[in-house]
């Protein structure tokens, strides 16, 4: 199963390191990363493989969200299928 992690917020040092650190800690394999700065806003999307997660998916998503909140960022973790179904015919 693959999920998308989207991080949106004010650009600061170490966002990518922090998020990928959590992924590594719980055995989520990062498959692809894109990041852009739109105006002042940092937007990063990350595709991760979560079949071998060492904790429950919901707990994992919460951990990422909480870390984001601490850094003043919005973090969304959503199943890949939602984007595929909405944006591809």
């Amino acid at each position, binding site marked *: 199963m693959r999920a*998308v992690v989207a991080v*949106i917020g004010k650009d600061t040092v170490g966002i990518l390191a922090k998020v990928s650190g959590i992924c590594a800690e719980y055995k989520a394999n990062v498959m692809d990363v894109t990041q852009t700065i739109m105006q002042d806003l940092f937007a990063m*999307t990350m595709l991760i493989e979560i079949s071998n997660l060492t904790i429950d998916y919901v707990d994992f998503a919460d951990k990422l969200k909480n870390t984001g909140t601490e850094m003043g960022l919005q973090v969304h973790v959503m199943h*890949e*299928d*939602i*984007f595929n179904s*909405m*944006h591809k015919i």
Partner: protein
Amino acid sequence: MLNTGDILETIKMIQEENLDIRTITMGISLLDCIDSDIDRACDKVYEKMMRRAEHLVKTGEDIEKQYGIPIINKRISVTPIAIVSAATKQSPVKFAKTLQRVAEGTGVNYVGGYSALVHKGFSAGDKELIESIPEALAETKNVCSSVNIGSTKAGINMDAVAMMGKIIREASEKTAHDHCFGAAKIVVFCNAPEDNPFMAGAFHGVGEYDTEINVGVSGPGVVRAALQKHPDANISEIADVIKKTAFKITRMGQLVGTEASKRLGVPFGIVDLSLAPTPAVGDSVAHILEEIGLESCGAHGTTACLAMLNDAVKKGGVMASSHVGGLSGAFIPVSEDAGMIDAANRGSLSLEKLEAMTAVCSVGLDMIVIPGDTPADTISAIIADEAAIGMVNSKTTAVRVIPAIGMKEGDTLEFGGLFGSGPVMKVSSFSSSKFISRGGRIPAPLQSLKN
């Protein structure tokens, strides 16, 4: 890799534009629960519903977490209770209480199907059920009722129309202490769909699967936000934007429906392609019409805008889903739509205009609060008018009006939550009594020579 823009667009739709799955509704057939002993029948109903819907709420919540999409309601619809209760030859209120116990036991927020289908005539159990509606709704909290009184093929059962005026009044009077909420749980249909996932009119038709999952989507806020990006587009372009947006919204419904059906092990029925508003700011169908270019919903041009919107929603949605059904279209409930409430308050939206709007959109006169002293015959005549529009145009129409006991035009009835609040709207003071008292049937209309 997915496109970052697409990912951010989806997140924005959910976070800022109130995109959600309005309901996952499990339809359950109760035909195998029929018994001449009412207590035994109720036991069978309870047992079957609890068994089938045991994991419905939990599954909905799991999908919500996994996909990050809010799923607002989890509901159940059942075979019209008049069919199930006919053999008992007793008041079917016990069934309503059983449905209430199931709602509490499973955690769903509504159970629909305290219903009768009488579009041509009454069969055993139908009259008893209709007469028991006010009591059943006053004594339960989460049970919804609907009655189909007409169809394009059968015409309109005017005896049933006359009864329903009285029943709606009585339901309101019996729940006057509770914002007249009884009347908000009754829908009177013409051409009722058998797979509708939306309340209060959901029931599980006899031609459906034994158990199935139907999904209703929402998203007026998303459509409006999409239109805001095209302030100078012409109507052809506007229709295209709506189609594309409806496609995306419906795809989400299709995904959730398929996933729920897989997890629960029951067939997937349909996606209802609907724009269902809520009183939340930014989740209004009226605001879409105003975004297109009306000063206030109800102004001349409203019917044309709504016709285009409704058609574009269907065109976009049809391709996004393998099976489409239910009510499918834009809903225009007054009390549940912030823009409609404002339009009614500022005097631009009248009952007559709403009636015209129902000729080109989904459903009908929905969640409209009328003066508390409106006679039952006048309510029946409102139902007859609305049913005639549905019958002649081969579409579903419905009436859900709430006589606000003790209130008059200009007052406001507060429901709270998803039901919002409704300004009491003006109803014609001229009598329709003689017409309603005649009874009989309006014959089915010609389907050719259409002019």
